[in-house]
C-alpha cells in the first residue's frame, strides 16, 4: 500500500506537467503559425481558403452555450480591490488603452462591464468633413471596395466569397446590380418600398427583376463595402458612420464561430453563418447598412436604439433557412435618425 501511495503521489504531478507541456507545445505551434501568416501578409502574399479538420470539429462544439457561459463568468461582480488588477491584466494582454476609459477602473463592477466601457469625451473626434464617411468602430481594415457584377460578392479570403444579399438578408432598399451598374431606384419607388417593407421581408432582392429608372438624371451611384475586424482589446462600441435614417433591423440567429484571421481562412461562409444584427436604411447618397457580426467570446450585440432587443439567447435548434427576425422602426419611412458619430450598438462579452 506504501508503494501504491507513492505511485499516485508521482502520477498526479506527472500528468499535470505532461498536460501543461502539451498545451504549451500547442500554443507555441499556434504562435509560430500566426507569425508565418503575418510574415506572408507583410510580403503581400494573399492567403487562401484552406478548410481543415479543426474547422469541422468546431461545428460540433456548442459555441453558443460556451459563449453564454463566458458571458456569465465575466459578468460576476469583482471585489473593488481586485478590479484594477484584472482590468490592467486584460489591457496588457490585449493592448487596450486604459487612459481612454470614461470612468476610474474600480467603477466597473465586472470584466463584462469594463469590456463595453464608454470612452472619455473627445477621445474619438469625428471628422467634420460633410463629404466623408467615418469609421463606425475601432479595428483593422480587412477588405473594402466597390461591389460589381450581378452577384455582388465580398471576398472572405482568396478563393472564397459570400454575397451581400446573404449577409444582409433580402432587402427592400438594397440597390440591384446588373451589368456592373447599380440600378437606381426613384424616390417614388423608395417610398413604396418603405411602405411595403413591413408587409414582407423578401419582396425585393438582388435576384429580383430589374427596376430601372430610365429617366433618372441623378449621378451614377456605386455600391461600396468595408469589412472591419475588432480585436479583443479594441473599443467595442459601434457609432454611426454618417447621418442616416435606420429603417429596419434584421437579426440572424446563427453560429458563434471565432472571427479571427485563422477562422476566416478555414471556416466557410463565416460571416453569413454567424449570429449577426443588420441595421439598414438610407442616407443622402442612398442605401446604407451596418452588419455587426458576433463571435464566440463577443457573442451578443446590444442596440442603443432598441434597448429591449436581445441576441445570443438559448435556442433548441438553429435553422439556417429560417428568415431573420425583422423590426421596422417607427415612424415608418423615417425610422431612427442618427447623426454622424452617434452611438448605435455595442458588442457584449458572451
Amino acid at each position, binding site marked *: 500500500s506504501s508503494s501504491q501511495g507513492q505511485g499516485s503521489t508521482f502520477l498526479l504531478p506527472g500528468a499535470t506537467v505532461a498536460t501543461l507541456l502539451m498545451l504549451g507545445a500547442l500554443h507555441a505551434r499556434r504562435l509560430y503559425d500566426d507569425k508565418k501568416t503575418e510574415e506572408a501578409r507583410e510580403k503581400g502574399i494573399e492567403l487562401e481558403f484552406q478548410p481543415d479538420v479543426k474547422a469541422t470539429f468546431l461545428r460540433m462544439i456548442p459555441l453558443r452555450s460556451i459563449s453564454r457561459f463566458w458571458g456569465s463568468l465575466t459578468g460576476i461582480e469583482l471585489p473593488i480591490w481586485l478590479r484594477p488588477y484584472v482590468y490592467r491584466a486584460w489591457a496588457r494582454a490585449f493592448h487596450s488603452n486604459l487612459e481612454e476609459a470614461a470612468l476610474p477602473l474600480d467603477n466597473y463592477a465586472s470584466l463584462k462591464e469594463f469590456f463595453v466601457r464608454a470612452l472619455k469625451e473627445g477621445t474619438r473626434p469625428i*471628422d467634420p468633413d460633410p463629404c466623408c464617411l467615418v469609421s463606425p468602430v475601432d479595428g483593422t481594415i480587412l477588405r473594402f471596395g466597390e461591389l460589381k457584377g450581378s452577384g455582388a460578392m465580398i471576398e472572405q479570403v482568396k478563393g472564397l466569397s459570400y454575397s451581400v444579399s446573404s449577409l444582409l438578408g433580402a432587402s427592400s432598399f438594397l440597390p440591384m446590380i446588373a451589368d456592373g451598374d447599380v440600378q437606381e431606384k426613384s424616390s417614388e419607388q423608395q417610398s413604396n418600398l418603405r411602405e411595403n417593407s413591413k408587409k414582407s421581408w423578401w419582396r425585393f432582392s438582388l435576384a429580383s427583376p430589374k427596376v430601372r429608372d430610365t429617366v433618372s438624371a441623378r449621378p451614377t451611384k456605386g455600391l461600396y463595402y468595408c469589412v472591419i475586424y475588432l480585436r479583443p482589446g479594441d473599443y467595442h462600441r459601434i457609432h454611426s458612420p454618417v447621418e442616416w435614417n435606420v429603417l429596419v433591423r434584421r437579426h440572424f440567429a446563427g453560429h458563434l464561430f471565432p472571427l479571427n484571421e485563422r477562422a476566416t481562412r478555414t471556416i466557410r461562409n463565416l460571416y453569413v453563418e454567424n449570429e449577426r444584427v443588420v441595421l439598414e436604411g438610407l442616407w443622402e447618397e442612398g442605401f446604407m447598412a451596418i452588419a455587426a457580426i458576433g463571435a464566440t467570446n463577443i457573442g451578443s450585440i446590444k442596440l442603443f436604439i432598441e434597448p429591449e432587443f436581445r441576441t445570443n439567447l438559448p435556442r433548441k435548434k438553429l435553422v439556417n433557412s429560417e428568415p431573420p427576425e425583422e423590426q421596422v422602426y417607427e415612424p415608418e419611412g423615417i425610422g431612427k435618425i442618427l447623426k454622424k458619430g452617434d452611438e448605435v450598438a455595442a458588442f457584449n462579452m458572451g
Partner: protein
Amino acid sequence: STVVLVFQAPTLKPLKDRDDSSSEFRFNIRRGDRVRVGEALGR
C-alpha cells in the same frame, strides 16, 4: 467581432457622361490599416 458596412455612394459616370461636376467616392484606407471611430474611411 466584425462589422461590415455596405453603402451607396457616387461612382464615376461613364466617360461620355462626365462633366466638371462629376465626383466619385474614394476610400482613403488600405488593407491592414488600424482605424478608430470617427476617422474618415473615404470621401
